[in-house]
């Protein structure tokens, strides 16, 4: 299981976490990906890197399900709400879960990496 909890761009956690998900998707049919805390911000629509040249990796997040067959995508609803966002603001619509489901989700997987 891979968890995104860091904001994109300020640090590389989100981007290199995503490169890792793409790789895992090729091996692991049952891969679970979860977005929580500032990690939800990586899915914001409308990113524009023209002025900074920093690589925009949101197309790869968008491709997770259709191209890389990652179907188990989840997001913490409270994290979204705290940031004034809804699923409509995002480039993909992961299944919304409640925070108290997370510990068990991690427990049910062999290993968890948090980026």
């Amino acid at each position, binding site marked *: 299981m891979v968890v995104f909890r860091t904001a994109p761009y300020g*640090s590389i956690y989100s981007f290199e976490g995503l490169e890792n998900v793409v790789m895992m998707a090729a091996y692991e049919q049952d891969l679970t990906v979860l977005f929580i805390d*500032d990690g939800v911000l990586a899915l914001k629509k409308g*990113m*524009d*890197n023209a002025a900074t040249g920093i690589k925009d990796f949101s197309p790869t997040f968008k491709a997770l399900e259709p191209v890389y067959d990652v179907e188990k995508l989840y997001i913490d609803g409270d994290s979204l709400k705290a940031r004034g966002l809804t699923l409509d603001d995002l480039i993909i619509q992961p299944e919304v879960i409640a925070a108290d489901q997370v510990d068990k989700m991690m427990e049910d997987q062999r290993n968890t990496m948090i980026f």
Partner: protein
Amino acid sequence: MLHMINKSPFESNSLEDCLRYASDGSPILLYEDGIYGALAGSALEARMKEIMAKHDVYVLKEDVALRGIEKLIDGVKEVDYSGFVGLVEENKAASW
């Protein structure tokens, strides 16, 4: 002093720490992940409005665009890198 904040206030206390020291009237620049402090409709909006009663709050346009943020809290001022340089012309700078 220009107080520069580059960490998400949802994750880091650097903005609140800085405010303990910043004099009323000193400008605050949110850049990099700091710009998330200006998200309209967020749980921090009420607090940011309190802050804006005492400080001019700026966000760096290029970092806002990079992150796809359209709706900023009313009254937050956008500056581009040239405006950022302008703020540093007018003020000494502290990076928190």
